[in-house]
Structure formats: C-alpha cells, structure tokens
C-alpha cells in the first residue's frame, strides 16, 4: 500500500480532486448544473453548428454547449466538470514538468483548476471559456513538443495561431504569451529572441484584427471573448486573472527551488496549503444569497415543493423570487392559507413579483401564473425570460413551456414550431415527440389532466393586464372558474398581504365553492381580528374558529395593548401570525 501510494501519489491526488469536484456539484450544487442547462438549447442540426462556428471561439462554444446539455442529468454534468477540471490540472502539470518542475511541487499544478473552479461560482462564466482554456493548455503542450524542431516549430506557430483564435477565441493570447516566453528563454541571443517574439505577436494580433473586419462585435469582445461570459458588455477582470495564472504557473513552478532533502515534507506542506487555500477560494466564489435563488429556481423547475418548504424552514428567504417560490410551494401543497405567515412576506409582490427585465426572476413568476391558469401572462414572462438571456441563446426550459402555453391556447402552428425545435435536442426530444400527437387534437388536450384543467381555468373574456390591479385579475380568474383553488388562495393572499381586510371579507365567502375541510389558519386569524374590531367578545361569531386561534388572539391582543413595541410580538409563535404581519411589520 505504501509503495503504491509513493509511486502513484500524484495520480491519487488528481483522482481525489476529481471526486471532490464531482461531489461538489452533484451533492452541493446540482442547482448550478440545472441553471446552466436551462439557458441553452443544443440542437443537433447543421445550422446550429454553422451559427456557432462562424464567430471566433465558435468551436469552443459548440463543444461547451454540447457538454452542457448533459447537465440535464446532474451526475453526468458533475462528471463532465470533474473530468474537465482534472484535465486542466493534469495539463498544467505536464507543461510544468516539460518546463522543468520538480515533483514535490505537484500541488501547484492544481492552482489553475482551483482558480477556475472558484471563478465558476460566477454563474455567468460559461463552459466555453473553461474548454477554451483547456485547449490553450493543450496547444502550449504541443508547442513544447515541437519547439526544438525548427521546421515544425514554425509551421506549428503559423497554423496554430489562427486556428486557435478562430476555433477557441482569445485564449490564443495565453498561447501567444507562452510561446513568446519560451522563445525568449530559448533564444541564442536577446535580439533574436525579441525579433522572433515580435513576429509572433504581430502575426497573432494581425490575424485577430483581420478577423474583426468581418465581425459586428466591438473590439473589446474580439479580444476578450464573444461567448466566454454570458453578459456581452462585460469582460470580467477575473477572466484575465485566470488566463494570466494559466500562463505563468508552469514558469513559477520551474523557478521553485528543488532540494533532495525533505521532499516529502515540502510536498505535504504544499498539499495542505493549497487544499486550504483552494477550499477557501472556492467557498468565496459561491455567493450564498445568489445560490439560494438559483436553488429555489431549480426546485421550482422540478416541482420539489416539499424541499422548497424545508429549505425555507431552515433559512427564510427575503428576496421577491425566494418568497414567491415559497408561496408557490405552499399553494401547490394546499397549505398557503395555513402557513404563509410562518414565512417572511414582503407584500403582494411576494405572490406574483412584477416583471423584471432579467432572465431568471420571470421564470418563477411564470410558473405561478401558469399554474393559476393565467396562460397568456405565463407565456409572456417565459418568452421575455428567454429573450433576456444575455448571450442570445435559446432555452430548453422556456421553449418547452412556450410549446405548452401555445398548445393550451390552441396556437398549434406556433406550438408545432417549438416542438420541432425540441425534437432536435437530446433531452427534450421524447417529450416533444409525445406532444406532437396533441397538435390539433382538442380531445386529447381537453382530457389531459394538466392542459385540460388549465384550459378551463384561463380567461375567456379579454382585458388588458394590469400589475397594479392584481387582486382584480385574480378575482376575475376565480369568478371564471370557481374550482380554481389556487386562484382563490392567491386572491385572499393578495388582500391579506395588502392588509386590505375589507376586500378580504368581501372575497372570503367565495371559499364555500371549494372543498375546504377547515378554515386555513391565516384566514381564521384575519376573521377573528376583524370580528374583534367591532365586537367585545366571540359570541355570535359565524365562523368555525379553532379554540387555539381564539386563545392566541386574546394573548396577542393583551401583549400588544400593554406594549405594541414588545419584540416578543414579532418572535416565536406570535411572529408567525397574520396579526404580527398586519400590525407590526408594516412599519418596517
């Protein structure tokens, strides 16, 4: 065992690294994988390939998007990322070794992979950049193999430079700088070295500038990458740092002193230091609040309502999207009326946040509208989310939902167009094949448990959407179909969150059309509060209020009257009541 470890310790470290990366994404951040996958739609046809390949870095995009589609299954996505990061680490080591690095500094070769792992915490860093960096390392390794053969050296530079730029983008600058440094190191004279380096630099920059004449992109993207980062107007500083680190690590390792004594100790120290720093760096890269939202979106996408509620019970969200996700989950579990005030609420916007021009927030709101039966609005939010994707990609998730909304609305031509697109993908194909049988088939659609029901829920009388009159729209929705329980609960929820008890009392009686076996808790709290405003006791109260609610309101009232600012009113059991929200939280 000891001999095995001493012989293969480097490989073992790489494997351990790979397993850690795999577990990181498969266990801790599957939401990241879903997030990346849902904002693209890889299509198996010639035009998709052509569209990618006609811009610099296009092959990198194509390969990355091909791989990203597999994130649809989390463990495969985690595997892919683990393999890529291990390849980066191994390539970094191979190059460092060719530059003369000593084995005891093997851990330093993990730095580029760790850095990129941390950088990927920015969810807008695209796999295209990672793939491109890996290919740049391979190109550098190729250079090391041929640099001593004059003939091949020149041919390699001449061919690799334009190809690398065209196919993989500005990572050619890593290759360029790597080649220049090696030229300077290996040159017989300083002048020769500078001359050759200048030629290589001019050749590379000249090619890039030549290519730019055919491209309708600003220069900063021509040099900074067209699709390395999801936002086209931004080249993050970290991207440049990562590229610089990829370049200099082999040379730094080469410069580190090698001594025969205490090799094992140095190796162990480097393992510990780099592992700790790596862990810290990666941890810092994954912003908790941001990933909370990404996780909520992931759970909503896969209808994991119980998990959403569990997550909120551990750590209550306070962002509109997080709150909306929790409310949606509560509604889907049929406990919105009972439990909504156990969680943080930020007004009626916590039920249906207003439209925001980004590509993430409208997704959750669209899901809520869809389930309510506000199909046109769900369609709009989903369409806008897709259009808002900054790098102009289409989304499998959005296209799927748009196919559904158009199907429900009988817009079969448009639905068919989206379904045919999905039929050219890998993971949506089966679903699309099945849905093709629904086209123009009113019988199947009406009999479908989801689509048929939503058809019954949706409006039939036209009006213009107004986000300042949400309660009225919900009221119309419920009036159209009084079996739409979610519409009723969102309507009452809206009035409660707006603190409009008059409207709550007006709409509450409509609940008799639904199959409630008890009055939901928060409704009881609102009813009993309203009663107490005009009655000295509970005699004659027309509703079935639970005794504990009656006792609680007495206790709350007593505490509130003695000290309205008592912090205990906002904590514990009282803190989860509608009375707390109604009386105390409006001042915050």
């Amino acid at each position, binding site marked *: 065992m000891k001999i095995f470890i001493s012989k293969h310790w480097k490989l073992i470290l790489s494997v351990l690294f790979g397993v850690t990366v795999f577990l990181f994404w498969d266990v801790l951040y599957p939401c990241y994988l879903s997030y990346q996958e849902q904002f693209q739609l890889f299509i198996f*046809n*010639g*035009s998709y*390939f*052509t569209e990618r*390949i*006609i811009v610099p870095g296009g092959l990198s995009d194509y390969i990355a998007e091909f791989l990203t589609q597999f994130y649809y299954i989390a463990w495969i996505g985690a595997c892919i990322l683990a393999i890529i990061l291990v390849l980066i680490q191994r390539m970094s080591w191979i190059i460092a070794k060719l530059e003369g690095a000593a084995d005891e500094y093997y851990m330093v070769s993990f730095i580029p992979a760790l850095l990129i792992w941390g950088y990927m915490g920015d969810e807008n860093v695209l796999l295209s950049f990672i793939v491109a960096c890996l290919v740049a390392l391979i190109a550098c390794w190729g250079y090391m193999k041929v640099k001593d053969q004059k003939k091949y050296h020149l041919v390699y530079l001449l061919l690799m430079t334009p190809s690398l730029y065209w196919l993989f983008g500005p990572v050619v600058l890593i290759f360029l700088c790597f080649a220049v440094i090696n030229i300077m190191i290996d040159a017989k004279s300083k002048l020769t070295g500078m001359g050759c380096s200048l030629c290589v630099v001019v050749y590379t920059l000249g090619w890039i500038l030549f290519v*730019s*004449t*055919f491209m*309708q*992109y*600003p220069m900063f*993207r021509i040099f900074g990458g067209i699709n390395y980062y999801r936002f*086209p*107007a931004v080249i993050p500083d970290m991207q440049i740092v990562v590229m610089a680190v990829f370049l200099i690590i082999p040379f730094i390792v080469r410069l580190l002193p090698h001594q025969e004594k205490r090799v094992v100790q140095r190796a162990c120290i480097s393992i510990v230091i780099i592992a700790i720093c790596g862990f810290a760096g990666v941890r810092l890269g994954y912003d908790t609040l941001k990933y909370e939202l990404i996780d909520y979106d992931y759970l909503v996408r896969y209808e994991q309502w119980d998990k959403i509620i569990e997550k909120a019970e551990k750590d209550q969200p306070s962002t509109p999207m997080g709150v909306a996700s929790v409310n949606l989950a509560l509604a889907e579990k049929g406990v919105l009326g009972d439990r909504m005030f156990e969680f943080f609420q930020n007004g009626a916007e916590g039920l249906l946040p207003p*439209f925001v*021009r980004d590509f993430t927030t409208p997704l959750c709101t669209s899901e809520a509208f869809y389930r309510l039966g*506000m*199909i*046109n*609005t769900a369609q*709009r939010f989903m*369409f*806008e989310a*897709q*259009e*808002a*994707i900054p790098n*102009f990609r*289409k989304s499998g998730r959005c296209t799927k939902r748009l196919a559904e909304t158009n199907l*429900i*609305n*009988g*817009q079969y*031509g*448009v639905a*068919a*167009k989206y379904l*045919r*697109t999905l039929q050219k993908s890998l993971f949506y194909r089966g679903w699309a094949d099945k849905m093709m049988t629904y086209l123009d088939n009113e019988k199947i659609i009406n009999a479908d448990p989801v689509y048929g029901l939503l058809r019954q829920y*949706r*409006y*039939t*009388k*036209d*009006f*213009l*959407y107004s986000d300042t009159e949400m309660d009225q*729209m919900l009221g119309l929705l419920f009036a159209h179909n009084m079996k739409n329980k979610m519409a009723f609960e969102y309507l009452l929820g809206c009035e409660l969150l707006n603190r409009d008890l008059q409207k709550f009392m007006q709409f509450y009686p409509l609940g008799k059309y639904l199959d409630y076996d008890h009055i939901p808790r928060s409704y009881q709290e609102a009813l009993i509060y309203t009663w107490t405003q005009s009655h000295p006791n509970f005699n004659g109260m027309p509703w079935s209020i639970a005794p504990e609610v009656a006792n609680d309101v007495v206790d709350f009232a007593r505490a509130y009257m003695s000290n309205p600012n008592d912090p205990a009113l906002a904590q514990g059991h009282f803190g989860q009541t509608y009375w707390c929200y109604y009386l105390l939280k409006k001042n915050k």
Partner: protein
Amino acid sequence: MIMKKIYLALASVALMLVSCSSLPDNPQKINSLPKIYPDYAGVTIPVGIAPLNFNYAGGDIECIDVVVKGSKKGEIHSNGDFAKFDIDDWHLLTEQNKGGKLTFTVCVERDGKWSQYKDFTMEVSPYALDEYGLTYRKIAPGYEVYSKMGIYQRDLSNYNESAILENTAVPGACLNCHTSNRTDPKQFTFHVRGANGATLVQVNGKRTWLNTKIDTLRGLGSCVYPYWHPSGKYCAYSTNNTHQSFHCVKNERIEVFDQSSDLMVYKVQTNEVLISPLLTTKDHFETYPVFSPDGRTLYFCSSQAQVIPDGYKKIRYNLCKIAFNPNNGTFGNKVDTIVNAAAMGKSLIFPRPSYDGKYIMFTMADYGCFPIWHKEADLWMLNLETGKIAPIKEVNSKNTESFHNWNVNSHWFVFSSRRGDGLYTRLYLASIDDKGKVTKPFLLPQENPWEYYDESVYSYNIPDFTKIPVDFDARSAGREIMSDKRTKIKVKDAE
C-alpha cells in the same frame, strides 16, 4: 459571412453525396395539386428572382422530382429531398419566359413508388423588379425584451443575406425604422433606442447622429417612422409616446398604443425640424407621415385623441393630407381627410403612396396604430385617380397583413404577413399591373424554405426594397453610437 458561405458550401457537398437520386419511373397520376411549402402554385414572379425552391408538404417521401418547362423556351430539372433549382439555370429560364409562364411537373417517390401530381404554373411577370434586394429588421416577436436583432439586406437574385447593423455591435441597443429614399440607400436613416439612443441620417456615406430628445418640453422626442422627401432634402418623422399593454385571452397578445404623437419634417442641410401646429395638435394623434411622389403633399394618419389605456379601442386613424412646399419647407394651412376610416369603424395605418402616383396602399385594422398584433389587419388600396378604396383580396389572409413598401416602378410591393403560424412575420412579394390587378403573393424564397423558416426564431419588420446594396460601415457606426456624440436639432416653427 464568408465563413458561413464556406461552411454551407461544404455542407451542400456533403448533402449531395447522401441525397436521393432516383428518377420517376412510370408514375401513378394523381389528379390534384401537390401540397408544397411554400404555396407557390399560381404566383407571379419577376425575372431574375432567386429560385423558388419548395418542399413537399404532403407527408414523408423518399424523393421529389420536378421538371419546370417554360411556355416560350427552356426546361430545368430538380431531383432530391426538396425542389432545389440551380440559380443560373433558373435565372435563364425566367429571362427566356418573361411575360409567359413556367409549368411545374411534380413527382414524388413514396415507399419506392412514384406518383405524379397535376401540373401547376407560375407566371413570369413582364414587369421588371430591378431593385437589388430587400432591407428589413429581424427580431423575435416578443413583448418588451429583445434578444439578438439587426437590420439586414437580402439579395433578391439569390439567398444571400448580410447584416447592415446588428445589436452585437452595440450591446443593449434596439435598432429600428430603417428607411431609404425611394429604395436608394445613398440616403438612409434609422433609429437606435437604448442608453446610447440616436437617429442616424446617412447621406452619401456621411453619417450624422441626431440627438433623439429634441425638445422634451414640447413633447418632441425621438424621431421614428421616417419617410424621405423625394428630393432628399427632407425626411418626415413622427415623435410618439408609445406604450404596450398585454391581453389576457388566448387569441391576443399585445396592444401597442400611442398616448400622444406628433409630426415633424427634418431638413437635412440645416439640421432643423420644421413643425406645423396642424401636425402637433393636442386633440389628435398624428403619425406615420409619408410624402407624395411629387413631394408637394404630406400624407399622414390622424386619430382623435383618447384617454389611454381605457379608450384604446376607440383609437381609429384616418388618412389625412397637408400641402408641403419643398422650396421653402412650409406647410399648407389646412388638413384634409382623404379616407375616413373611423367612420367605417376601422383604423388606417402605414400609408404608402406608389412612386408612380397612382395608389396609396395602407393597412386597415379594427382599431389602433400597431396592426401587426391584429389578426384582422389587411392590406387595402386607395386609387388616387378614382378615389375608391378596397381591400386587396389577392394578398389578404385570415391572419395579419401589415407593413408594406413599393418598388420604384410601382409594379411590385413587399409586405409582412403572419399567415404562416400566426406569430412569426414573414415577407411576401406581389405584383400589380397597369390595370390595378394584383397577383398571388409569394413568400420570400430561401434555399431550403421549410428548414429555414421553421428554424428561424425571428420576425421580419419594416421590409423595403433597396436599389443597390447598402454600403454601411457597421464597425465605425457601432463606435459612433457608443461615443454619444450627437448633433443637436433645432426646432423651427411654421410661419
């Protein structure tokens, strides 16, 4: 563009190697027309148009074989997965049969057996379509957010499309309302919306970026819906306070309305906008200005102002006119209503006079100013000689027909339609003869039309003909847009 052509050429070679290549053998005759996409049976085409390739739309087949015979001369043949004609052969055939017709014999192979359909014909128009091509904007048919979009030009003799300006050159920008002067792009204007907003006026290669916020105190904002004066000395614009709202029922999506709009005429030489109180009234919305071919009349649409959004269904535009003196840039002292669409319970939008002075084509909808979202919108024509108006039934469908433009000889027009699937706008061309007879329109040809249009996620807007290729330095323009250097416009009130 070059790289795209190389890749497509390689792909074509590869496809040729795997396509079917059997010929019809004793086909069974079928006494009906073949189901093809696009529906090109009975259309009229100009000489030199790109080949009207088509796909078989009647189910899965192994092969389609098409023989095209000219009534006067010539014959071409296609055999493969879809009907695809050699461009040069097709051009020659159309030239040889100008004024005549082309007869298409279509055979399809299914389960190893051939069937032959009833022949259909295409007329080759005696009227030339000399313009180089079309310009248009491509954008997804969305609501408020836009993804990739741009203004493009397309060579009508083949399938080449190139970008004039895409919003990749100017991240975040929205580009719109590109307009040449009577199809001559040597005078060209378009509008940029967004953080670096501006109105471009390009004359003979010289670009001027106008400050879009002209005089906000007077409600004179961005310059949109342009139309050049035939002399090139002026360009009419509208300034609109536009909003959108969204329908909640299945058959509707968007309602676009103006809460106010006024007209102005920009004088190129002096960077002035000329304003008339008759065109900037508070109680009417004036929009969509167009000049008559002789430049002495300004036509426009005008609606009684309504409280928006409550009164959005009461917005109905009439076609009006006012005299214009191009010598001194002054307006007449009265506005005449030429077509009272409101009295018909309709709204008249996008008037476009033919360049020969005979007609004004326009879009008619039930109400409103933005008919692309109205299924009932159709193309109508006003005969200026007789004063009669009528829908152009040859080109209208059950879905939206909307924005249109004429070619210079006024025998051809291009228009946008959503007849395909009800959402994605496509372009159609049709001709009109000296007697006013309009022919069946044809969908803008593509190399593989089914694949192209089915995969395209863009709608076509603001189509127009272009006499010559648009020469536009997109890179410099992108830099200029981002630079925020703008020319201020002076306001000159009518005397």
